[in-house]
């Protein structure tokens, strides 16, 4: 329906505006203001006065300016052409804006998310006469070499296919199928539009049981995330949230990546835009951009559009999930989103409860993370949305509201420790404060696929680290030399695990990604080292001899010196290690020899 004039502006306070004469409007309806047609959204209604949040700068807006209704809520366009795009928080393609406006963003530009002119090669998958129901595939469009865009029967539509477009090229607004339903004929196009603020639930939710393989050793082995799960990365500034999110976006074994830069730095988005077309997906060798969609509403862009960027992103994720894909969504940072919520609440003079946040903060967080999930999208297809949210606690203090409430709604918590970051231990994922509740759900996957006792291996390494943490407390009082050799060995092995396994340099072309095989082999090797070392120390070898072993450096450097396709070098390393241990063992004075 064409926009109709209905109200007039009466009040402006930053991004919050009020308009009278809005009795007909509904909550969350999208409206446009002034002749510039700035896009706004109604967030409160009282009698005929609507309170509106504005997605753009309000400078120069005056009482008396006209307000036009759109009749529908904020929605995002979905269809071929999304992949490889960079969109702002309300779904406008930034590349198109740049062509129209130059390097600086000016307000008031209306551009659709999807290109209306471009034609896409459509291949039908059904024939006229077929009975279809929601989730069935009507046809496909090869959107990128990495991604087949599946045009599925929309929710609420079922019946007999009357017509289907023949194989050929179509724009997103052309009809590609007509379905006879109980309530008449329904046309299906390549494009559809979904409101962003409400969730589009899975047809059938299932318990997540397959890990999201990230290629990040500390995550895959120690604090794993399941496909369809939710994780949070809290950490102070510079702790490594963004680098970790970029690593996840690059190397995770998801089909589609949605990366939301929510109130963060412009250059970080540029970095992704510059690197992803060049970085290769380790599984297919194709450029990562062919499976990635970016949403960039940086810190200097309007704060209300920042608030909606999260919803725009997760709606796109649900759309791809319903095709039967595993989608991973990264939001950096959810704290900036929460602050946008707080700022708008403040302008509405809502009652602040904690740190100025409104009482509905936890509810909003829960709604967002609940949109993650794994399940059935059709009889024979499964899909998932995995959500990974960065959290930026003020002062790095995890007791603040956003971190605390987020913790309630995620099952993997990757706490970044500033002290580790200062010491350049990256990723600075604390092995003490982090946890994953997915361990038991996905252990069968690891054990089935690789035939190893993944849980046992993980537990063993973790308990060495936990013991070291306890021993360090004693060391801080009496120094390491006062400890018995067996305990000093624990300190040494823990240091080896930290340097040789937990740390992972995102900038090193070999180290930045490890295959699951390398992850397992490397940790097994370290555990073998511990076995042998402990045995020798029991036999009386002083710990400093272990600390001085030649093989140590090679073992620590293996993560960046041995690439995934040369894992046999780990075998050679093991042989060298055994030889050195054997030599050390021979030197241990035997009681018998002493006697003779």
């Amino acid at each position: 329906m064409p926009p109709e004039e209905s109200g007039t502006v009466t009040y402006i306070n930053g991004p919050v505006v009020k308009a009278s004469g809005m009795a007909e409007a509904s909550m969350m309806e999208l409206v446009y203001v002034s002749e510039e047609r700035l896009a706004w959204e109604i967030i409160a209604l009282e009698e005929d006065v609507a309170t509106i949040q504005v997605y753009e700068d309000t400078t120069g807006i005056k009482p008396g300016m006209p307000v036009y209704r759109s009749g529908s809520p904020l929605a995002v366009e979905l269809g071929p052409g999304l992949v490889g795009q960079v969109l702002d928080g309300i779904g406008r393609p930034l590349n198109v804006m740049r062509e129209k406006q130059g390097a600086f963003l000016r307000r008031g530009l209306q551009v659709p998310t999807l290109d209306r002119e471009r034609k896409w090669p459509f291949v039908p998958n059904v024939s006229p006469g077929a009975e279809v129901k929601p989730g069935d595939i009507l046809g496909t469009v090869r959107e990128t070499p990495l991604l087949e865009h599946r045009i599925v029967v929309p929710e609420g539509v079922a019946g007999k296919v009357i017509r289907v477009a023949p194989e050929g090229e179509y724009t997103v607004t052309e009809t590609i199928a007509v379905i006879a339903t109980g309530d008449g004929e329904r046309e299906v196009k390549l494009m559809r539009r979904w409101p962003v603020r409400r969730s589009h639930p899975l047809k059938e939710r299932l318990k997540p049981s397959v890990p999201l393989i990230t290629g990040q050793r500390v995550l895959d082995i120690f604090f794993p995330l399941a496909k369809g799960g939710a994780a949070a990365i809290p950490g102070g500034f510079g702790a490594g949230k963004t680098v970790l999110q970029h690593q996840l976006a690059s190397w995770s074994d998801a089909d589609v990546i949605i990366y939301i830069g929510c109130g963060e730095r412009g250059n970080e988005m540029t970095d992704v835009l510059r690197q992803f077309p060049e970085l290769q997906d380790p599984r297919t060798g194709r450029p990562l951009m062919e499976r990635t969609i970016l949403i960039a509403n940086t810190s200097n862009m309007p704060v209300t559009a920042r608030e909606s960027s999260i919803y725009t992103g997760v709606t796109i994720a649900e759309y791809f999930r319903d095709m039967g894909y595993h989608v991973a969504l990264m939001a950096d940072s959810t704290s900036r989103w929460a602050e946008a919520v707080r700022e708008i609440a403040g302008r509405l003079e809502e009652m602040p409860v904690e740190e100025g946040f409104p009482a509905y903060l936890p509810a909003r967080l829960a709604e967002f993370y609940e949109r993650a999930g794994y399940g059935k999208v059709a009889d024979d297809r499964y899909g998932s949305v995995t959500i990974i949210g960065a959290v930026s606690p003020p002062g790095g203090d995890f007791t603040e509201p956003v971190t605390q409430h987020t913790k309630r709604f995620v099952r993997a918590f990757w706490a970044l420790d500033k002290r580790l970051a200062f010491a350049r231990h990256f990723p600075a994922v604390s092995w003490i404060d982090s946890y994953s509740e997915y361990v038991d759900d996905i252990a069968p996957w690891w054990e089935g696929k690789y035939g190893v006792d993944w849980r046992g291996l993980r537990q063993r390494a973790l308990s060495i680290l936990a013991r070291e943490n306890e021993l360090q407390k004693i060391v801080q009082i009496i120094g390491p030399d006062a400890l018995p050799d067996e305990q000093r060995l624990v300190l040494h092995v823990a240091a080896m695990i930290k340097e040789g396994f937990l740390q992972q340099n995102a900038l090193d072309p070999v180290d930045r990604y490890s295959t699951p095989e390398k992850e397992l082999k490397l940790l097994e090797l370290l555990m073998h080292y511990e076995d042998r070392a402990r045995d020798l120390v029991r036999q009386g070898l002083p710990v400093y001899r272990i600390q001085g072993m030649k093989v140590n450096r090679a073992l620590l450097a293996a993560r960046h010196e041995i690439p995934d396709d040369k894992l046999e070098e780990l075998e050679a390393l093991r042989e060298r290690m055994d030889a050195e241990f054997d030599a050390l063992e021979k030197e241990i004075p035997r009681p018998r020899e002493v006697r003779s």
Partner: protein
Amino acid sequence: MAVTSRRVYLGVEEVSGPLVFVRGVKGVGYGEIAEVVTASGEVRRGRVLIVDGDRAVIQVFEGTGDISTKRARVRFTGEPMTVKVSDEMLGRVFDGTGRPIDGGPPPIGGEERDINGSPINPASRLYPENFIQTGISAIDGMNTLIRGQKLPIFSTSGLPHNRLAAQIVRQATIPGEESEFVIVFAAMGVKHDEAAFFRESFRESGALENVVMFLNLADDPSIERTITPRVALTVAEYLAFDRDKHVLVILTDMTNYCEALREVATARGDVPTRKGYPGYLYSDLASIYERAGRIEGSKGSITQIPILTMPNNDITHPVPDLTGYITEGQIVLDPKLHQQGIYPPIAVLPSLSRLMKDGIGEGYTREDHPNLANQLYASYARVQQIRNIAAIIGEEELSSVDRKYLRFGEFFEQEFLNQGDANRTIEETLDLGWRALGLLPVEELPRLKREQIDKYYHPWE
């Protein structure tokens, strides 16, 4: 539609802190500039913060002292706050709102620009990747500054942050390039002698005709500070993106800026968050710091070096905290190093340059640079742990490797960090880093590649 009231003078209904309330307005837009005329005829400028029907709230920049409800008059201009930008501004000194204070006439040519600028489209940015050699080892070697970066100095009162900033300005070069930096200097609430120090130092290095200064000093109206960085950055954007210059912007002291912002927020009744700062401090600071970088279609760049003093030397205070969350790293100064007479007293562990990853190494500085920096960090972090233990059990009780770490730490601080006014090339810096590592056994250097060790590592004994 309402008629504008540009020529109409209205009475003042209420004055509260930096805010003036006016009734009977018509056609006034959010964010436009108003002029308040005091009883004595003085004109003060302010910005419209809220419009509610026929009422407007104005934030007055130049102070509300002697504005009375009875005798003051208000006029709206219909325009946002602007500054006139031109090449003529180089070599000149202005107040915090852009009016000349060097005795010279206002620049004649030029174009009026909205001081709030417009956000850079992230798709139009060019990623910064040119190494700036500052001649300071702790920066060049370990926290490399990149052209187009925003890299603040976190300091505290009594530390030589001004000296460091002036040294960076004096020594900054791009090896192998002729182009020079143009300096935009914005002072917010700094003391007269500090401003004089900078002026003198720009003069000594013969750079004065390449400097534009905006001075809001300690005794100038505090609310004016909320616009000073925006005026300065508007000029910087003009010089960088219209005139293709490489601009280095010094903003000091951002803590004073934030305090002025808090004053306005409090007067307005905004919901306070930590330490009374408003919840939008992050977005507000971002609207300043994000005005740095490079864009398509222009050869110029804006590199920002904001300086801020951390109250109580507390890095978790909202001002350094939110700054660190926005800028591309930070250079942290340490009172303990300063007490030991080390200059520059840069605490390398909490310092960070996020952009160095793309501006160093093969083809930029030297191929060993990334791993060398990484290893220096790791080894120096180890020194701190060993020092803690040594403090308990005494140095004699340490293992021989641990004692080597202490010697490494000593050398690192006394030689690598403590360089005084020396201007070192990047090669000198890197070689010094290797010399420091020469104090450690090779087994302790797992972050370096074997080839690099073969080429550069020379153990001391």
